[in-house]
Structures are given as C-alpha cells and as structure tokens.
C-alpha cells in the first residue's frame, strides 16, 4: 500500500489541485487573489516527463479546472497546454539558488501567460459591447497572481520536484 502510494504520489497530488483551487486558502492570498495553483504541479511534472506529458496533463488540468469554475464562456486550457509544453523543455539546474530562482521566474511568467490568455478571452467576448474597456482594471488580477505564483513557486515546486523524482 505504502509502495503504491509512493509510486502514485504525483497522481494523488494532481487530484489535490482542484481541491485547493476550490478551498481558496486565504492565508496564501493577497487582496483575495490566490497563486495559480496548477502551475506548481505542472512545472515539476513536465520537467521530469517531457513536453508531450506536460501538454497532455496541462489539458487534463484545464478540463478539470474549467469544470469546477462557472465561467462557461472562457477556458483555462490554452494557457495550461502551452505552459505544459514549455515546461517539458526545461531542464533541472544543478545550482541550488539558481534552480529555486528559476522556478519562481518560470512560474511567474507562466502565470502571466495564462492570465493574459484568459483576460483576452474576456475582452474578445465583450468586444462587441462599447464598454469592453471596463475590463481593463481587472488586469490587477493578473499582476497579483503573477507575484503570488512567483513568490511561492521556489518553495513548492522544488519540493514537488524532489517528491516526483523520488517516486518515479
């Protein structure tokens, strides 16, 4: 049982992502905004398993997260698929500090990419209305998310990377 759990640790943590996405723990938040949780799992997973796995699991994550959010007109899939593919091409850095810093930087950029793609969908959907520019102030959502994701990534991603490597 223990061996099974160790081997399937990454999958167990995959299931945990939508739960934490719904839990929305306030102590991690900043003005009510949370880090973009799926990236913390996707980055170490794709780094160990390659671009194709990253792309596929990015799609899976997108599907699950879309199903638990109510915004039926917008999707998180494109951002996560692109990030999954990109993360698969990144290799582990041997230097402790540089490696940690890279996790933060990569996750920040990925969060910016996902947030921007989502925001563009909202703007495009409302483009026909004359008031589509109303949505511009909500860019602050992207910025807060980028900051938080980059802030927590070095800690969470490095630990997950070690766990996944150990269980592989």
């Amino acid at each position, binding site marked *: 049982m223990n061996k099974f759990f160790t081997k399937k640790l990454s999958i167990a943590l995959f299931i945990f992502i939508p739960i934490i996405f*719904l*839990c*929305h723990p306030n102590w991690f*938040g900043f*003005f*009510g*905004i*949370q880090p973009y949780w799926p990236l913390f799992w996707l980055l170490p997973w794709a780094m160990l398993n390659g671009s194709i796995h990253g792309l596929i699991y990015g799609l899976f994550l997108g599907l699950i997260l879309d199903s638990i*959010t*109510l*915004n*039926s*007109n*917008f999707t998180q899939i494109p951002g996560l698929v692109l990030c999954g593919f990109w993360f698969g091409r990144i290799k582990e850095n041997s230097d402790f500090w540089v490696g940690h810093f890279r996790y933060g930087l990569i996750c920040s950029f990925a969060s910016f990419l996902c*947030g921007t793609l*989502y*925001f563009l969908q*909202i703007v495009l959907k409302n483009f026909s209305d*004359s*008031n589509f520019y*109303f*949505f511009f*102030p*909500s860019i*602050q*959502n992207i910025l*807060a*998310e980028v900051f938080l994701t980059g802030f927590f990534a070095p800690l969470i991603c490095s630990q997950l990377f070690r766990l996944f490597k150990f269980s592989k």
Partner: protein
Amino acid sequence: MLDIRRISTNRWWHKKNNWALLGIFLFLVFVRISKGSIYKDIYFYISKPFWPGEFQKEILLKSKDQESLIELNILKRDNKRLREILYLQESSKNDIISAAVISRKTGSWWRQIILNKGSKDGAEIGNVVLGPGGLLGIINNTSLLTSSVTLLTSTESKVGVWVDRVQMNGLLVGLGDDYPRLILYTKDADIKVGDFVSSSPASTLLPPNIPIGIVQSVDDSFNAEKTAKILLLAKPHVIDWVQILKVKI
C-alpha cells in the same frame, strides 16, 4: 530681619484653605459663564426617568409602528396583485432555503461561491442567493448536494437593476473585480454618489426590490451611456451563511 520672615509666612497664598476657596470661586465663575450648562446636563440624566412625555412617546411610537405594519401589508398585497397582472416575478418567505458557504472564490477571474445545498434540497439553476446586505448572485449550477453561485462581481454576471432616486432601469455588469459597473442607457441620467441600487421591478429573472448596492463613483463617459461604479452591500468574501430564494421562472 526676623520681622520680615514672620510677615512673609503669614501671606494668604501660604494657606491651603485659601487656594481651595479660590478654586471653588473659579469653578463658580465658570458655571456662571457657561450659564449652568453642567448643572442642566446632570439634571437631564437625573430627571430622565421621570419625564412626563416619555411614556406618551412610547405609546405614539408603538401606534406609528402598527400603522406602518398595516400600511406595509396593504402595499405588499397591492404589489402582489399588480405583479400577478403583469406576470412578473414574485417570491414568498416559504421559498427560502438557508445554506452555508463551503467554497469561496472571491478574487481573481473566478468569482463564485459553492453552497452546501443542492438539487436534493430543492435548489435550482436560476435561484437567487441573498446574504446579509442583499443580493449576492444567482445559482448557475447544481449538483445533488451543492450549488454553485455566480457572484455579481463575476465577468459572467449581468443583471437588470433599478436606481430608485432617478427611477431608472439599468444593467449591472461584473468586471472581475470587487466593484461591478452600472450602465444606464441614457447620458442624461442624473445619478449621484450614494444612490441606492436594487433589483429591477421589471426583471423577469430576479424578485423585485432586493438591495444590491450604492453608487460609489460616477464615470465621465463620452458615450451615449452613463456608467457608475457600484459598492455592493452584501460582502461575499466574509459571508458564511446565505439564503437561497426560489424564483419561479
């Protein structure tokens, strides 16, 4: 030399009693100048229980309350009758389900709450969710045990509202931040900061006159529309219990 010392110890300011008398004198001067306001204020509290008009005031207020209650019931009946004639939405106290918030996403793009009452308990898509303060959102999805609510701040939320002071209908659009925008489709609308916004009486989706928010700022618009930033009365990020209002669509 000795004489001088004896005289100086006998000066009036060397006696404590004299200082006390001076203090009392100054206090009385102050009372005189203030025209006895301290005395009057103390007397106000002492005599309060014995005021002759107090009991009468209570009777009057009670009568006024009863009058208002009767008037309210008449107006409610009238309103119901008129809404029936116009085939508009209505709701009754019997159609309320209390529910707890079990998940809350009030930041970022996804603005939703999940409640612990689902289709098993009678919650349906389109039901209105109220919290302390007023309208929170509309149920967008139900499972057997839970229901998901799209908050008014969500980018997917668009509801018809009523600005009572200017007697005008408008559209409340969620933008993905904490302040939805009110759009009034006329440039001449005289909305001001502090105007009260409630659900539109003409709405076919929402029950009428549910408090929603107040105008926080009015935008300078060059379009043919007038827009304003709305501060919501119900705060979804702190509310733990809500009420689901069953709306007959």
